[in-house]
Structure formats: structure tokens, C-alpha cells
């Protein structure tokens, strides 16, 4: 499959910029003046203990939680990154290809959605996304027949179908066996290094961060408290 996942008009050449993000939930500050930037072609690990604010930061960046501050993909403050959820969040009864096409819903109307009339270009693109995650032949299968690792790869394909240029992954390997975790992390690194996407991934495992990320940010009590660069180690995909 030769369809490029990052086209000229997509935001592949742009990175993610979160600036001065603050969130309070129930009167409690969850994020305080957090600033993060991820360059195109870079994969950054977000680390920290449970409750530190990793998931909240990713959900803010994806536009799911309102927050004070600036969220921009490149220079575009209206664009939103694609989010890969911790437990894949696939529609279990839908076919794998339909799940990937969910990433294209913003580009088609309600009538086409209702009648399942997908433009050929969207289907071709969704198939290319599936091929990119190594599941080219899985399109017609129901999502609930896949293994955990396969489902997470379909979730990545769905995020790719958004053509967002920036991928956010919320503990994408938390519930996977070591082999599947390796596969998913390699895939995310390849998407950054080879496809030019900016990838921000929250991880609990420091060894995975060291192996697959270019940089690591440590978040604690809603603030960025530490910063590691592994770029030399992971500069080759």
C-alpha cells in the first residue's frame, strides 16, 4: 500500500504545542500552567504516577476537556490531535474497517454516514491506515474477534485516519502482553520517525520510554517536573 499517511495538506510537517494549560476539576487544580511541545517526527513519553495528570493533559489536548491555555497543531489553534485511548474504545460490533472509518467521520456528512456511503478516497485511505499497522487483511472482521494488541493497532489506524498529524496515546500498552506492547510502541515510534507525525504518549514503564521515546517528560501533581532526552539512543527507527 503506497498511500502516504501524511500528505502535504495534512499537518505532518507540524508539531504539537500546549502552552500554559491549566485545568481545575471540582475546584481542585489538576493541571497548573503546563507547557509541552512535540516536534513533527518526534515521539515524547509522558511519565508520572497515577493521578499526576497525564490522562487529563492528553484529553485536554484532544479537546475532550476544556482548559485555559493554548493548544495548537503547528500554527492552527482550531486543529485537534488524534487520541488513542487506553482501552482502544473500538465499536465492538462494527467491522475493523468501519472502526477505522470513524476517524473520517468529520469529513463526511450525516446522510452519507447514515447510508454508509463512504467516498472511495476515504476507504482507500482507511485501508492504507490498516496496512500501516499491519492489519491489511483484517478489514471485514468484527472488532470483537481481535486480540488486545490487534485492537490497539486498529485504534492507532483510526487515529491515523483522522489525518491529524499529531498522535496522542493514553497508556496504549497498559493492558497488553509484552510482545504486543513492543509491537505497538515500535509502531508509534515508526509513525513519528518515518511518517513525520508528532507523538505524545503517556507511559507507566520507564524502560519502554527509554527504548522508544526521543524525550521523556515527568509530570507530578499537575506540573512538569523533569525532562530527559534519549534522542541519541533512539534517533534511528
Amino acid at each position: 500500500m503506497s498511500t502516504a499517511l501524511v500528505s502535504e495538506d495534512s499537518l505532518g510537517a507540524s508539531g504539537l504545542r500546549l502552552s500554559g494549560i491549566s485545568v481545575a476539576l471540582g475546584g481542585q487544580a489538576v493541571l497548573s500552567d503546563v507547557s509541552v511541545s512535540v516536534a513533527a517526527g518526534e515521539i515524547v513519553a509522558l511519565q508520572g504516577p497515577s493521578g499526576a495528570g497525564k490522562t487529563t493533559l492528553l484529553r485536554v489536548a484532544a479537546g475532550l476537556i476544556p482548559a485555559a491555555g493554548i493548544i495548537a497543531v503547528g500554527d492552527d489553534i482550531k486543529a485537534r490531535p488524534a487520541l488513542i485511548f487506553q482501552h482502544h474504545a473500538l465499536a465492538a460490533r462494527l467491522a475493523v474497517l468501519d472502526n477505522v472509518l470513524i476517524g473520517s467521520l468529520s469529513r463526511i456528512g450525516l446522510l452519507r454516514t447514515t447510508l454508509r456511503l463512504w467516498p472511495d478516497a476515504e476507504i482507500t485511505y482507511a485501508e492504507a491506515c490498516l496496512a500501516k499497522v499491519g492489519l491489511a487483511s483484517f478489514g471485514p472482521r468484527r472488532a470483537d474477534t481481535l486480540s488486545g494488541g490487534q485492537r490497539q493497532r486498529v485504534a492507532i489506524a483510526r487515529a491515523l485516519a483522522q489525518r491529524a498529524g499529531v498522535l496522542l496515546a493514553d497508556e496504549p500498552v497498559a493492558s497488553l502482553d509484552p510482545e504486543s506492547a513492543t509491537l505497538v510502541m515500535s509502531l508509534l515510534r515508526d509513525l513519528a520517525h518515518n511518517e513525520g507525525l508528532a507523538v505524545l504518549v503517556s507511559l507507566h514503564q520507564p524502560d519502554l520510554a527509554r527504548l522508544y521515546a526521543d524525550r521523556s517528560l515527568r509530570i507530578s501533581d499537575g506540573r512538569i517536573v523533569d525532562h530527559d532526552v534519549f534522542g541519541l539512543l533512539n534517533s534511528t527507527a
Partner: protein
Amino acid sequence: MRKGMRATRLKAGGVLIVLALVYAFCLWVVSPDLGRLWSGLPRLMRWLATGFPPDFSGPYDLALRASETFAIATLGTTAAAILALPMVLFAARPVMPVAWLYHPVRAVLDTLRGIDALVFALVFVAAVGLGPFAGMIGVALHSAGTIAKLWSEALETADLAPVEAALSAGSSRAQAFVFVLAPGTLPQTASALLYMWEFNIRASTVLGVVGAGGLGQDLKNAIDLLDFGRVLADLIIIVAMVVAVDRMSARLRRRLL
């Protein structure tokens, strides 16, 4: 600790006393008399015995009545589903576009469910005259409330993670509903619809009592004339129809899972 246990015991005792009072009231109102039942059984058995052999005379008329019952239930359930669809959009929290309409719409559903199809049919006989049309309206109105409630509960208990994923991918709420939530809850919603169809086949037989057509009409006439052969024939056809529809819907449900 002991204080808490004592309070629990007192509460349980209070509940038991209230239950006993409720049952005492019900027994006083119904006045069940097993002696009267026992003495009436021989008469009932004599009547049942006169029902053999069942009277299937006039098969064309019987088939017409049976088809009326089937049509009342099928069209009534379909119309109910069409009525329920817009209501469910306002009665299920995950899809509800206007928050303040939630409770009023729920109240409408409760009202529709609270009035039996028989009562609706009786009212609409006055409006559209005797016949299956009044029965269909009765079935449709009562079932719309039930179907909308069952559907809204299916939507409210659905896994909303895929819906959130679709919304975060930029889909509209309507798109997320038709492409993700509706197919995701299809086994529950279709099952509720098929259940209502089965239920309405049974319910439609009773509608004849108020002149709304179907086998119930034939059954009522037969009971009025003490024609127990005919009563038995009607009951056999009703049971056969219910069993057939039950099998058919069970097969459909299996295919939808």
C-alpha cells in the same frame, strides 16, 4: 456498631410490618375464596369437556380473524417503533440534545406505558369506528412508550467509549449515534422490538373485546354464546400464532447477536 445493627433490625421490622399491611389490604379487597373455587370446578370442567372437539368450522373466517390479529400487532409495533425513535433521542442521556426535555419526554413515555392498549383502543373505537384500525392505534400508542423506554435504557447502559472516540475524532453527535451507538446497541434494541411484537400478538387477541377486530372478537362472541368448541379453536390458533412468532423472533435475535 451495635447501635447500627439495632437500627438495621428496626428498619427491617418496619418493612415487614408495611408488607404485611399491604397484603392484608389486598386480601380484604380480593376476598379469595378457595371453597367457592373448589365448588365451581366441576361446572368449569363440564364446560371445558363440551369444548371437544374444537370447532374449526368457517376456516376462512377464522383465518381472516387470525390475520387481523397478526396485522394489528405487526403494524401497531412498527408504528410504535416509528413513534418511539424521536422520543428516545430525548429520553436517553447519551444522545439527548436538549437537557430540559429529558423529564417531560420521560413523563410522556410513562403516560403512554401506563394506559393499556385496550383502553387506547376503546377510546379510538369512538374516533375511527369498530375494527382493526382502532386496535392498531391502541397497540401503537401503548407500545411506543414501552419501546422508547427499553431503547433509552439500552442506550444509557451502552459502552460509551467508542462514542467518545468518534466525538474526539471530530464526528457530530448525530453521526456518532447512527454510526457507533445505534449499531452497538442493536442486539438490545432489536430484541426489545421483537419482544414487543410477540407481546402485541398476545395483546391483540384481547382487543376484540372492545370491538377492535381480530381473533379476540371471535373469542368474545363464542364466550357470549357459551360455544366452547369455538372458544377452544380460537385458543388453539392464538397459542399456535404466539409459538410461531416466538420461534421466528428467537431466530432473528440469534442472527443479530
